[in-house]
């Protein structure tokens, strides 16, 4: 069951890539303007937390300094409120990683000297999954995780 679903998702992803390639061929100008400056495309294409951590440049370490705020059960996977908070000194960035999404990284929040490492947003979840709140401190990625159950997936058509 899971296997079939995964295959279907992969076929979908492949088709999407083809679609993008086709569009790029037809309209090169738009393709050039495609990614916003500084947007790290490989990082957002990572398929697992380990891959994402490698590209992001850090060793994942579980830590109590980072907390994740989210529901235990999300009825609608298309809109899951998630908050990330870090109490670790020297947090330079926060991230939300959803283990079982087609691409795991949902968002990155880059801190400046005045920002407080405490952000919240709403994310899509394909299915019940562990959600990681990640804080980048030096070359370490401190994280804490929480399983959020999804009744209705957010990636269905």
């Amino acid at each position, binding site marked *: 069951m899971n296997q079939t679903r995964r295959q279907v998702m992969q076929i979908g992803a492949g088709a999407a890539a083809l679609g993008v390639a086709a569009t790029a061929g037809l309209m090169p100008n738009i393709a050039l303007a*495609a990614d*916003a400056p500084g947007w790290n495309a490989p990082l957002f294409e990572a398929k697992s937390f380990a891959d994402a951590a490698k590209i992001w440049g850090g060793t994942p370490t579980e830590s109590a300094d980072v907390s994740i705020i989210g529901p235990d059960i999300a009825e609608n996977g298309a809109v899951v409120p998630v908050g990330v908070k870090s109490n670790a000194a020297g947090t330079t960035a926060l991230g939300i990683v959803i283990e079982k999404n087609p691409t795991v990284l949902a968002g990155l*929040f880059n801190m*400046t000297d005045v920002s407080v490492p405490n952000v919240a947003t709403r994310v899509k979840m394909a299915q019940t999954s562990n959600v990681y709140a990640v804080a980048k401190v030096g070359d370490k990625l401190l994280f804490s995780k929480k399983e959020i159950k999804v009744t209705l997936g957010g*990636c269905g058509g």
Partner: protein
Amino acid sequence: MAFPMRMRANVEGDVVVVRVLMTHPEDTGLIKDKAGKIIPAHFIQSVTCKNNDKTVLTCDWGTAISKNPFLEFRFKGGKSGDKVTVSWIDNKGETSTADTTVS
């Protein structure tokens, strides 16, 4: 296409809390429409938040951010009357900017 934003910024203790609601389809590029054609990916990639022209937060987002994204963030050193500006750019190069006054 117009992408309006609603936002509010309040002083809470020694920090300013900003809440933003953006308008954006956030298509992942994985979903098909009723005719079976893939809806191309269309999502916000970069968000910049400023307080009186000083950058306080930048965000890089992927496709997993929900449709009509919500963002809440906090920063220090703001005061009532400051101007908070939020702008974003999506993968098609479209942008939108909105500002509000801290109350």
